[in-house]
């Protein structure tokens, strides 16, 4: 059964910090109240990534949270994650759908309204839209979209949207006020002194409007 995409998504990152493993970050986030955890690592071997995914999957079932794997539909399939998130250079949506079937979530990254409409048309279950603000976590080829364009995307597509990119304690409220279904953070949790407390603080802001 497809899980709904809503609320706070924490993306695990072990490149910007080395204090916590993916599994540790995932558990701290879930304890802090994250609704969705996304495993993202572009450098690990398949074996290591699979091991992390299996660990997070067990936690996500125990805590009742949604678990998404970035990029790798095979890791999502093998770990029985709730879905996969595909960037612009990952597998096409249709290819991932063929593998995962209709019961799994497929998210797609978009940084323009056209991208978002295309992803919706291609069968994505949700759009990861951004980056909303400037961010240091990835080399970006496009300027930040800002909150205004996020509003336009929310008008343009019918599927849920997850806002991503440079979102932190200070600006998350302005993003949430657009009515976006979900907000994703990376360094706001991963680089926080206490990731669990940071997640809880962010989550508190995302109370239903």
């Amino acid at each position: 059964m497809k899980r709904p995409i809503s609320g706070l998504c924490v993306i695990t990152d072990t490149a910007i910090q080395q204090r916590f493993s993916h599994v540790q970050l995932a558990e701290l986030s879930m304890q802090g109240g994250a609704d969705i955890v996304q495993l993202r690592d572009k450098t690990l071997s398949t074996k290591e990534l699979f091991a992390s995914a299996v660990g997070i999957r067990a936690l996500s079932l125990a805590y009742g949270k949604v678990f998404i794997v970035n990029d790798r539909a095979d890791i999502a399939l093998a770990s029985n994650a709730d879905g996969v998130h595909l960037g612009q250079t990952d597998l096409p949506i249709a290819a991932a759908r063929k593998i995962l079937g209709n019961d799994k979530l497929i998210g797609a990254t978009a940084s323009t309204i056209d991208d978002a409409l295309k992803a919706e048309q291609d069968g994505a279950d949700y759009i990861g839209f951004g980056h909303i603000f400037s961010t240091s976590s990835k080399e970006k080829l496009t300027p930040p979209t800002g909150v205004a364009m996020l509003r336009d995307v929310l008008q343009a597509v019918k599927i849920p949207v997850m806002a991503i990119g440079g979102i932190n304690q200070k600006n998350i409220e302005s993003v949430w006020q657009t009515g976006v279904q979900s907000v994703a953070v990376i360094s706001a949790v991963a680089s926080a002194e206490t990731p669990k407390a940071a997640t809880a603080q962010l989550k508190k802001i995302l109370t239903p409007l």
Partner: protein
Amino acid sequence: MTLSENQHKFSRLFLITDQALSNRPLLDVVSDACRAGVSLVQLREKTLDGKSLYALASALRGITLMHGARLFINDRLDVALAVNADGVVLPETSFPVQVVKHINPMLLVGRSVHDLDGAIDAQRCGADFLIVGHIFKTASKPKQPPRGLHLLKDISTHIHIPIFAVGGITPANARQCVQNGAFGVAAISSLMQSADISETVRAFQDAIAFVNTA
């Protein structure tokens, strides 16, 4: 070659891709190789992103089907499933064999191994074949010393699934690999860099045919 070996589900020459080594478009190289009689192709392009790998795999699926050749994808199970490849080749840093067999029992699974323990483990876990290496000195693994022919001999005495020797394999040394227990050979640069691929394939086939392995 005995009748039972003729009927075996694998042929003896495996082509492994490496775009970086080739002066020609990969699709042309694979096309020519299949036309010359190669019927096992492994797509192994470690630096490509998912989108590019999928595009290449789709094109290779078309070519291999047209020639009745089998297509294997290195490591990326999702790409293999998405293009209906015949199987995957899993390095020891990839998925456990059982995980892939559980997801799709029809998918052929090859395991790349470097020692006897790895080979025994792979066979126990249900691998359909092994790629063993690297046997000879090769530019693709400049830092590690070659394992030598005795590794093939060691492994083949303990293993009943087909073993393909890999690493520095040429038509000149392929026969030794088979004489030392390999079922077949896997070639990367010998085929990727061949000026006349049908000639190279023929040389390989001559070298590994009619070897007395008893």
